[in-house]
């Protein structure tokens, strides 16, 4: 890929192809570029972390040094230069806001552009938003109300300070620090993220929501999310993302760990629309994420994702069905357009008896993009009566894009029942003509058809997210039939 110049960036910004392509001018407290043990110590010290966490980071870093970047995914890209990344960047203003009014106006404006308007959201939807801008949480609302119920919902850094025993007990238990190349990198250099704990028997009364946003140029964002649902509790967690347009590929390597203890349920929904690169495939976010949930007895974890952004996506939200009767679900819509590449899917690891998993994956490829589903269903020998149902559909919008399905099934117990269905179809000219003949223009027709195609997944999203997701699908596919 040729070097991208400032002039070209300026031009791209003029084009306004990416609606959220703006940069906020807030002074940052930055670490120097590059990665070594000193940088890790710097991050840890900056965040006033306990010794055990520094050790966690350093162990991860040392393991990472021995690892090589995975190449098995069906994606092609220029590997990031890990010494050319700034691993710590926090808005300089470190004091905590007492009220929403104290928040930096420019930051508020950013959120307005994103369409977030916290006040409105708080009032209208009852969503508590933990807004992460460049790795540091700046506003957490509704905390008091949640506190009454004993629910903890805060930034990861705050959790490390306030609830170190909980963090230490669960962190790295689902995604071990040496799990894979990017998880190890994250474990070494993560700067912030979200932490959520729902106490025994508590049903979280609102959707917990975090908006992530990559802001600082050249800053990889390495956030960590840890959600613990204690016995018999329930939580629905929303994660939504937008990133400003950028002149170079930005690395994003997050780790999300979910723990559903006995009889608990976690619903985790993601809408991801990071900058996908321009229409010639220049720029865009590299999204290499490790998401995994641990299901204890009678518990349930449900992943729902709508992925429309990023230049390269490498992401497999998975469930380890460790406890008997536990349930894992994965609902995904992945849209790729222009030169985007996505290799996404899930792993359902059945360990306990009577465990059930459902996989519904809807891929939509347009332009010259490549969209792959990669999934593993693994039934271990003690998993009596395990059940899996997988459905992987691909919709092609052009003759130049690609859709691929890589389903892996490993079964070591003969009582298991595994079903896999897969379809590939091209968006029908006859469908579009039918809509046109009813007075519906092509853009709306595509939007209708695509949203209909993805309905099973969109239906899993909480209401306010579903609306946003539908709009995103439409925006992502504008003018894409060919």
């Amino acid at each position, binding site marked *: 890929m040729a070097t991208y110049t400032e002039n070209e960036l300026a031009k791209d910004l003029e084009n306004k192809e990416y609606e959220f392509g703006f940069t906020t001018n807030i002074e940052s407290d930055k670490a120097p570029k590059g990665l070594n043990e000193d940088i890790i110590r710097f991050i840890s010290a900056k965040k006033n972390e306990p010794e055990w966490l520094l050790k966690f980071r350093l162990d991860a870093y040392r393991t990472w040094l021995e690892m090589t970047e995975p190449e098995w995914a069906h994606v092609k890209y220029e590997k990031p230069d890990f010494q050319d990344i700034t691993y710590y960047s926090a808005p300089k203003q470190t004091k905590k806001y007492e009220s929403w009014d104290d928040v930096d106006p420019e930051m508020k404006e950013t959120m307005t552009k994103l369409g977030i308007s916290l006040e409105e959201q708080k009032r209208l939807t009852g969503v508590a938003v933990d807004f992460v801008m460049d790795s540091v949480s700046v506003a957490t609302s509704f905390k008091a109300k949640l506190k009454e119920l004993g629910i903890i919902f805060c930034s990861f850094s705050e959790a490390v300070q306030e609830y170190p025993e909980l963090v230490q007990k669960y962190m790295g238990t689902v995604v071990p620090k040496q799990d894979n190349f990017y998880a190890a990198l994250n474990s070494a250099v993560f700067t912030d993220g979200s932490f959520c704990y729902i106490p025994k028997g508590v049903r979280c009364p609102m959707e917990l929501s975090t908006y992530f946003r990559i802001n600082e140029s050249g800053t990889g964002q390495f956030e960590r999310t840890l959600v613990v649902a204690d016995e018999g509790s329930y939580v629905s967690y929303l994660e939504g993302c937008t990133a400003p347009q950028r002149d170079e590929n930005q690395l994003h390597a997050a780790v999300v760990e979910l723990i559903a203890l006995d009889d608990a349920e976690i619903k985790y929904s993601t809408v991801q629309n990071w900058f996908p690169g321009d229409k010639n495939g220049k720029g865009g976010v590299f999204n290499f994420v490790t998401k995994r949930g641990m299901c204890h007895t009678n518990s349930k974890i449900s992943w729902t994702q709508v992925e429309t952004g990023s230049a390269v996506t490498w992401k497999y939200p998975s469930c380890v069905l460790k406890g008997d009767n536990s349930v894992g679900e994965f609902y995904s819509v992945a849209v790729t357009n222009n030169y985007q590449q996505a290799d996404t899917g899930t792993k359902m690891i059945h360990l306990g008896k009577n465990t059930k998993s459902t996989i519904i994956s809807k891929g939509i490829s347009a332009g010259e993009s490549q969209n792959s589903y990669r999934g593993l269903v693994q039934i271990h020998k003690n998993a009596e009566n395990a059940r899996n149902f997988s459905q992987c559909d691909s919709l092609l919008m052009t003759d130049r894009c690609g859709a691929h399905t890589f389903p892996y099934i490993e079964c070591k117990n003969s009582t298991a029942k595994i079903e896999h269905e897969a379809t590939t179809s091209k968006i029908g000219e006859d*469908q579009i*003509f*039918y809509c046109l*003949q009813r007075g519906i223009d092509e853009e709306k027709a595509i939007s209708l058809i695509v949203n209909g195609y993805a309905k099973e997944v969109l239906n899993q999203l909480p209401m306010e997210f579903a609306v946003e997701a539908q709009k995103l699908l439409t925006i992502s596919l504008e003018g894409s039939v060919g």
Partner: protein
Amino acid sequence: MITIKNLHANIEDKAILKGLNLEVKAGEVHAIMGPNGAGKSTLASILAGKEDYEITEGSVDFDGEDLLEMETEDRAREGLFLAFQYPVEIPGVSNINFLRTAINEKREHKGEDPISAKDFMALVREKSKLVELDAKLASRSVNEGFSGGEKKRNEIFQMAMLEPKLAILDETDSGLDIDALRIVANGVNTLKSKDNATIVITHYQRLLDYIVPDFVHVLYDGRIVKSGPKELALELEEKGYDWIKAEMVEA
């Protein structure tokens, strides 16, 4: 309402329409009959705006506008409706959502406000009765899993909802049993008024027992070769198309 003059059309260099003339006035019902491959469905597709055809000659005037210059969706919004021979399935999109979108597109085109949910539902109830369409079908995905008869009734239901000026029914009778045929015909007859017009394309005279045309035209080899009153349909039923072909050869 619509005036077609000397229309010539090709598909992949093969001439399908070879100088077709037809005039339909408001309040009239015209039947177009003809053997397989005569160009009946091509005519319907061209009027609706399907892009697979190349118009090489001729003109179509639709209510004072040059129809051939209009976008497909604008033809629909201006009141041209095609009941498809093979209605298309759109999985995951409810009939209701589809129709509401269609109606609002039309209203927006006319500078009107979107229809309210209340009015829309009242309209759905009223019009679905007309074609005895099960209310459940209205909320199912567009044509998905519908029987052949249900699909055709759904076309007429959509027509009733959209209240077109000119409706073209493309072999709406194909695949219908006699009860469904009666229901569909009843729907069409109820919607008939002095301000709208209908073109019924059909193979068989059967449908015309129920939808009585003012004029019958025979389309053969890309042209209207014979026109007459409704009795012409009976004659065709009796004699088949061979005598027309024979007449053509003689001429």
